[in-house]
């Protein structure tokens, strides 16, 4: 697959603060690339630099094979942007807003009318086309924000935290809609600090912290990079020190915490850990009410790489 975006060693400073530190990444055509990082990690700055809206001190951005400049109109025509802040005009109705922003890209009126109707359907705003933005709920407003960014059917869409402050149902609708766009061939760059979202929709993920891309790959590849394995949780019916000690001595256990019959075991990376735990419980004739294993999350990955949780900054 050809690269749609090539970012090569971008450095962006705000005074003494280095917002982007030698950021390099590539996004292939047809993929959903997730840029994950805590608030303030440089995600929005990275997008604005890619769009040639912000100056940067060093590095280069190429989109569709062309160096991105403010006057790269051919490339810009194929790009859609959904801002973190809702970017619609309050005095205009839903339909007028979508038509206005679509009209910045599409001149033909008949084509634009069709595209606006499609965008309204896509965002599920059919019943609200004559509403002013102020009359919409938070979720609908976010959907309008997205509709304004994608109405002109771009080949590449940047979405900067589009689901902030959105209820779970609207969030699912948005994510499903994005997956549908992707199935139709649109390349998507998606920034968020919600790890569940990137795990759900992204083909590849870049983890950004302090302006640096600290890890990149698929969700499984990222989890494979760390030493942490599954987390196994057991609810014991009759806890005793002997079985806890036996569990602690298993060679793949990196950490064990016990509290009032609930044991949480952090394992090292590897396969078939649950079998060994069950065997140990059986050997000590210990009854349990529940036992389950959880795969490591991207938060675990971020925690292990940076020593901080993704949500620490929220």
């Amino acid at each position, binding site marked *: 697959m050809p690269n749609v975006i090539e970012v090569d060693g971008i450095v962006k400073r*705000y005074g003494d603060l280095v917002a982007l530190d030698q950021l390099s990444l590539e996004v292939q055509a047809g993929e959903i690339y997730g840029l994950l990082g805590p608030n303030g990690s440089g995600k929005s700055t990275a997008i*604005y630099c890619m*769009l*040639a*809206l*912000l*100056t940067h001190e060093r590095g280069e951005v190429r989109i569709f094979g062309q160096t991105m400049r*403010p*006057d790269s*109109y*051919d490339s*810009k*025509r194929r*790009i859609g*942007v959904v*801002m*973190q*802040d*809702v*970017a*619609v*005009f309050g*005095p*205009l109705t839903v339909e*007028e807003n979508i*038509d*206005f*922003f679509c*009209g*910045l*890209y599409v*001149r033909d009126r008949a084509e634009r009318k069709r595209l606006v109707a499609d965008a309204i359907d896509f965002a599920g705003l059919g019943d609200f086309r004559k509403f002013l933005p102020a009359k919409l709920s938070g979720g609908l407003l976010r959907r309008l924000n997205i509709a*304004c*960014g994608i109405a002109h059917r771009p080949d590449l869409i940047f979405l900067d935290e589009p689901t902030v402050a959105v209820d779970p149902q609207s969030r699912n609708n948005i994510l499903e809609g994005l997956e549908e766009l992707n199935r139709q061939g649109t390349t998507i760059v998606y920034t968020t600090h919600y790890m569940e979202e990137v795990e759900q929709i992204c083909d590849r993920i870049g983890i950004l912290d302090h302006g640096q891309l600290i890890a990149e790959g698929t969700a499984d590849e990222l989890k494979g990079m760390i030493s942490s394995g599954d987390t196994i949780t057991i609810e014991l019916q009759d806890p005793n020190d002997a079985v806890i000690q036996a569990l602690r001595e298993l060679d793949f256990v990196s950490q064990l915490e016990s509290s009032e019959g609930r044991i949480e075991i952090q394992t090292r990376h590897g396969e078939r850990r649950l079998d060994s735990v069950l065997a140990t419980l059986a050997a000590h004739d210990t009854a349990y009410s529940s036992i389950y294993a959880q795969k490591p999350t991207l938060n675990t990955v971020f925690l292990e790489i940076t020593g901080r949780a993704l949500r620490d900054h929220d």
Partner: protein
Amino acid sequence: MFWHFYRYRLLANLKQPQLVFWALVFPLLLAIVFQLTIGGIQTDRPIHAAFVENEAFSETDVYSRLIDDVNAADTPLKLRQLPAEEARQALFANELDGYFIVEADSRLTLHVMRSGLPQSVLQSFGTTIEQRRAQIEALLEGNPGQAARLIAATAEEELESSRGSEKDIEAAERVGNSAQTVYFFSLFGMGALFGASFAINEIEALEANKSAEGRRIRVAPLHHMRLIGSSFAVVLSLLLVCQLVQLAFIIWIQNLVIPPQLVPWYLVITLAGTFASAAIGAVLGVFVRKPDLAFGINVGLSLIMSFFAGMMNDQVRYNINTHFPWLSAINPAEQMTDALYSLYYYEDLSRVGRNLLMLVAMGLVLGTVAVLKLRRQRYVHL
């Protein structure tokens, strides 16, 4: 793209009641309040003059009797006698159109602050008194009112023979109460300045560092100068419509009598004021980081500048003109007020031309500064 942007931005501005209120409704409301409290633009105001009480004046009772006679008769002249300093102050305060000093050799010296029809009438009045002194004295002795009528008739003849054009007669019909008229004209200037809010609103919509909408517009494939041009056209259109409505209000509701041949001049003044105001709004919008602060500054500046232009008190305008002429020169409200005033009372086109030049220069300088800043294509901060 130009017209697409223009159409929607025009609509977005029109659907913001606070902008239309300040640029159009508020000045009209104030005009109505002025109309109800101090009356409208008057068309037949008297001509006020005084005789200075000096030694030559007091040597004879001719002048004091003449004052009584003229005031008692049905003429537009209203005379009084005042000490020299009071006469001077009254002239500066626009309470007098001129005052006479009786010289030791009985000549009358007329002191005025500006030229115009009332001053011409006074000049004729003085000439008539000087030339027909014996006849006037005789009339004052036995025929009350006759001296006044003689002077009025002679002054009219004098006027017709010296300037004698229809223009003067039309102008005479339009002579109004200048202080009150200044209120309305400065109100017109204030409306234009308030309209600068349209420009601030447009800059907010355009600039990526001021609004999310601006960021979205800036990443679209649009040529910046075309975008700026479209936006400026939106502001000019809105401001011009608001100003023309106000002008129509002054003409039809407040009975401003404008000769047809002068209508284009009023339109040009409106256009120049609109241009300057749009440029002021653009500069505020570009250089003041927070749009709300820019709106606040604009409202404050509009009120101050129209106050300096005489909106509340004509004396303030006079004092600013006398002591801080540079402030008057850079005050668009004063330039608009003065242009309308000069056109309305004196048809002084050279002075109107100077006012227009100042307004256009202000618009060009400030507009250029704003456009240079707006032309940037990348931002250091967002």
